[in-house]
């Protein structure tokens, strides 16, 4: 047999508990609302960290590139300076450098200096290249 609600139950249910105050509602709202505003801020933290990481990475890459560029530039400058130096005059040093690089380089430098001698004074040729007497040369060549 199913019993229905008795009179006392109905009477009790008809009593309404006193409602909560507006102040309590406001206090609860104050406690819960800030969390809603904090969520975007919280979501922004990983984005901010990613931005900082990306900037740092970019800085490293750019600095690395600049270092490599300046190193290559200074390398080029020194090579060019060396080239200019040993190409300028037919010295022992310039021939040594050219020979160290390759026989072709040595030959090229030699040809260059020969062409220079044709347009400059003969003293350069005498000092820089062949100053031996004909007799000495003949001895060296084994003509005697």
């Amino acid at each position, binding site marked *: 047999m199913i019993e229905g609600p008795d009179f006392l139950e109905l009477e009790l249910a008809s009593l*309404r508990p006193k409602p909560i105050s507006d102040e*309590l509602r406001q206090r609860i709202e104050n406690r*819960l609302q800030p969390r809603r505003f904090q969520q975007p801020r919280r979501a922004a933290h990983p984005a901010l960290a990613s931005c900082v990481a990306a900037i740092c990475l970019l800085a490293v890459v750019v600095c690395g590139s600049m270092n490599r560029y300046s190193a290559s530039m200074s390398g080029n400058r020194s090579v060019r300076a060396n080239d200019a130096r040993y190409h300028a005059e037919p010295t022992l040093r310039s021939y040594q450098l050219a020979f160290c690089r390759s026989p072709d380089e040595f030959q090229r430098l030699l040809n260059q200096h020969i062409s220079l001698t044709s347009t400059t004074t003969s003293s350069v040729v005498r000092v820089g290249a062949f100053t031996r007497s004909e007799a000495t040369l003949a001895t060296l060549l084994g003509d005697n």
Partner: protein
Amino acid sequence: MSGGSDDWTDWLDRHGAVLLLFARQWISNRSDAEDIVQEAFVRFWRRRDEVAEPLSYLYASVKHCALDRQRHQRRQSQREEATARAECESLFSHAAEQAERENAIEEALCELPEFQREVLVLKIWGELTFPQIGEALQISVNTAASRYRYALEKLRESLVKESIR
């Protein structure tokens, strides 16, 4: 989610008054009881998605906070507690013509043992089912049902005695 929407104001509108009534089973002072409801409700709202039975968890949170506050209040003197009880407001919104009867019900309710009264409040005004009451109070469904039955019987006896006087 059983018993409500995802808007906290809906939950508060629907259950706020009964939560306050429930808290006042342990904390007679209305202002202190509102503190309890505030703390318990905020705690409930932040964890509502993690619990299987949100409504039971909400009432369980109120009881937990109320008992916590009660422990603190026990440190106060008996005199201060008696004063607080004397100053406490009534539990219900009385209609003028029924005030006498409703006062009698409220007094009879206050005389019930705590373990029966809390079941009665959850069943009558909270409209919880016995399984939900069992979950909220950590008791079996049968225990919840029997406590409710005994509470009604005792209340009925008290009200009959009151009407004879």
